[in-house]
């Protein structure tokens, strides 16, 4: 299970985002954006796009330490997530919802962080191997 998550979580989140965005886009061009389900889909699409934008902007910041990176990145993401999710009525504004979604968000954040670190470690190994072959 751990291995499965490590290898697939990032592609699963990407596929989920792509499906949501595609369906929202199709709903939009078909003029089919009213109705509870479509509004929810639109809301999710807006959430995904904004959080992607935030991630992209943050990726250009050179943080002094890993701790600083996580504090700023996680805070910005989680605050952004709740602000957008509440204003678009994606989740109910209750303590239960905040705690549950917050915990899920934090777990996903650190799992994805670990996956990315593993990927970079593997890339470093491959680069070093190639460099030693070329010498």
């Amino acid at each position, binding site marked *: 299970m751990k291995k499965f998550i490590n290898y697939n979580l990032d592609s699963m989140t990407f596929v989920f985002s792509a499906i949501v965005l595609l369906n929202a886009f199709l709903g939009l061009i078909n003029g089919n954006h009213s109705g509870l389900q479509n509004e929810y889909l639109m809301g999710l699409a807006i959430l995904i796009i904004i959080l992607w934008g935030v991630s992209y902007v943050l*990726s*250009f910041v*050179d*943080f002094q*330490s*890993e701790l600083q*990176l996580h504090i700023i990145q996680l805070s910005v993401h989680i605050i952004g997530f709740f602000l957008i999710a509440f204003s678009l009525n994606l989740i109910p504004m209750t303590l239960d919802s905040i705690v549950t979604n917050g915990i899920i968000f934090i777990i996903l954040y650190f799992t994805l962080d670990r996956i*990315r*670190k593993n990927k*970079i*470690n593997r*890339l*470093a190994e*491959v*680069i*070093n191997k*190639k*460099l030693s072959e*070329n010498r």
Partner: protein
Amino acid sequence: MRILLNKNNDIEETIIEVTYRTYDRKLQEIVNLVEDNSHDIKGIHKGETHFIKTDSIYYIESIDNLTFLYTEDIVFESKEKLYVIEEALGKMNFIRISKSTILNMNYLKSVTSISNYRLEATLLNNEKLIINRHYMKNIKVYLNL
């Protein structure tokens, strides 16, 4: 890699023909050597202007709108902007590794992963440079990964 040398008194000019399976870094170096792609970049050190062979430059860095050329033991200042030098270097062994740095891949010894999803490059003279995550694809392309 094998080298076959054939003497032929009937030809006027030496022909170098390379049969390869993959166009890799070593082959690029051979092509550079034959075509003499290396050229000089003007650099200033202690008020004197020098012409530095690109082969001897470890990396080029831009700091506060000034451009510096780092060789093994001397740092030269260049009047050119980083992007101008990058364009002039064209298909040589130099690749952009961050917004402000261009690295000569011939001097890259190894890399290690560091915080913030970045890589730290160790050069042959043991200097260390940061490879920004947005520029990792350049390394991958260069090394055919």
